[in-house]
């Protein structure tokens, strides 16, 4: 693993990271069909810190998120969420942790992550209702959140199919916020949005960071998270190949894959790699 700066893997400054992943291995399948999806991944996110996890499709980004959320079992290594070691957790202990609402996940496709038969209000209040909060209080808290995500109250009675893509993404973020989580994992939060909605979502994320929430932004596009993330971790074929501050990774990429990413991102300053240079980097990666 190439590290842009010594010690960059750890949080910027925190007594207890919101997320701490150490030497994580994840496998899919059994026997001969067993395939390693993550290998020796170590990563931590401090409260109030935003970490961008970058990688191409199939690199293991979503697998890492799903392992942190307990949807995929870890093969080796450890995962600590909000100070609690969750590596050996069974179904019941996972449910108890999730009910506390300390970790939330914003899915890649907000349309499919909202039940098409439930109104926006029902979807928003669901995490609170699961915790056992009364319907009236849950509804009041949902309404109080709407301002923060720039949504109007009349949307609450609508179905997800009646909202625009940007509105749905903000509903998904609001749903993640409603339990007051310490850590939010966002899977490609802006990749399907137009530039106006993208800016709005990124502004909301910056406000969250200022409020002390730890954010793990997953994306295939370095350009879309480099401006928001404090640190960037680059995942390639299941391994973290480079981590560092966003400035370090973009300004002085060490690993050939990161150089290729920086060179291919049209939105980044210094993304000047020409075609020949990109092909040379690709050739280097495949040797």
């Amino acid at each position, binding site marked *: 693993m190439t590290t842009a700066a010594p010690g960059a893997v750890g949080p910027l400054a925190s007594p207890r990271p919101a997320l701490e992943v150490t030497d994580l291995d994840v496998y899919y399948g059994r026997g001969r069909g067993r395939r390693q999806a993550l290998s020796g991944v170590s990563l931590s996110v401090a409260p109030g810190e935003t970490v961008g996890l970058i990688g191409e499709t199939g690199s293991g980004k979503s697998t890492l998120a799903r392992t942190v959320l307990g949807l995929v079992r870890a093969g080796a290594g450890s995962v600590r969420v909000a100070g609690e070691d969750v590596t050996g957790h069974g179904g019941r202990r996972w449910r108890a942790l*999730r009910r506390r609402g300390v*970790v939330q*996940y914003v899915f890649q496709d907000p349309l499919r992550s909202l*039940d098409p*038969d439930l109104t926006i209000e029902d979807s928003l209040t669901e995490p609170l209702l699961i915790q056992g909060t009364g319907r009236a209080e849950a509804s009041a808290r949902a309404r109080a959140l709407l301002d923060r995500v720039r949504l109007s109250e009349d949307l609450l009675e609508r179905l997800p*199919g*009646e909202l625009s893509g940007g509105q749905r993404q903000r509903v998904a973020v609001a749903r993640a916020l409603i339990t007051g989580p310490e850590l939010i994992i966002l899977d490609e939060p802006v990749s399907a949005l137009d530039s106006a909605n993208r800016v709005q979502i990124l502004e909301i994320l910056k406000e969250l960071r200022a409020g002390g929430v730890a954010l793990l932004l997953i994306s295939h596009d370095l350009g879309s998270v480099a401006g928001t993330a404090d640190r960037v971790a680059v995942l390639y074929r299941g391994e973290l190949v480079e981590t560092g501050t966003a400035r370090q990774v973009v300004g002085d990429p060490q690993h050939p894959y990161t150089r290729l990413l920086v060179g291919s991102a049209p939105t980044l300053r210094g993304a000047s790699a020409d075609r020949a240079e990109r092909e040379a980097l690709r050739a280097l990666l495949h040797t």
Partner: protein
Amino acid sequence: MVRRVLALTSGRIAVAVLAVIALLAVLGPWLAPQDPLATSDNTLAAASGAHWLGTDHLGRDVFSRLLDGSRVSVLGSLEVALVALVVGAIPGILSVYLGRVFEWITLRLADTLVALPFLLFAVAVIALLGNGLTQAMVVTGALVSPLFYRVARAATLSVARSPYVEAALVAGASTGWIIRRHVRVKVLPPIAVALAQTIGVGFVIVSSLTFLGIGVQPPQPTWGGLLASDLGYLSHRPWGPVTPALLIMVTVWACNLLADAIRDVSGEAGRALVNDRKARANRLAKGRPVSAGGAR
């Protein structure tokens, strides 16, 4: 969903026909103008003021027999459908959640039941337990249950793997919560379609069994039994089988019509229907065109 079904013309027709059939089943024996079992010398008579649908070969009033026999036919078909629903749908939903062993056992059971010919099996059960429609219908219901098992399982599987169920899981939802809040709404429409179809199939099964004289003791009247007795005297009363056959046909048709209506108003299509109505209401309220439904 009931309101949406009734908003469709086909749904209203189906519900109206089935309501009349249900009324016949409940009130039939009291509505019968004459004793359905009373014989007379006036055999194979044509329709008249005294006998609206004529008389059969023993001089019994056919109209009274049809009314009296509707209860057995309706109850029999409901029994088949309800037994199939309980035996099939509940394990179908649970097979997704109760682990691989339960899933494997229920799948193999469903495969086995599908392989058994239900009409022959019902005849065999009656031979074993004695001539009674109830036991025959319970067994037939169990044999038809794989339909509900498959429908409920397929609908549950598609919901269980959806991101919104994962979102609920991440929020700490239990299996019970997920079934109540997310799965039930999605599984009910296909089950309702299957239920309406099975009630129709149930009518055919009850009529087939009673046509063969199985399940009921003569002289108790049933629609299938009337059809059979009338068929024996076709040369004397060629119009005789028309009424019981028509009743069976219309009932089965109404069940299928209801199934189609439920399918048309549920799921994605149903939401589109509601969106269209909202858009139309908006247009009328504002007096100008508004795009339907919003972004998808």
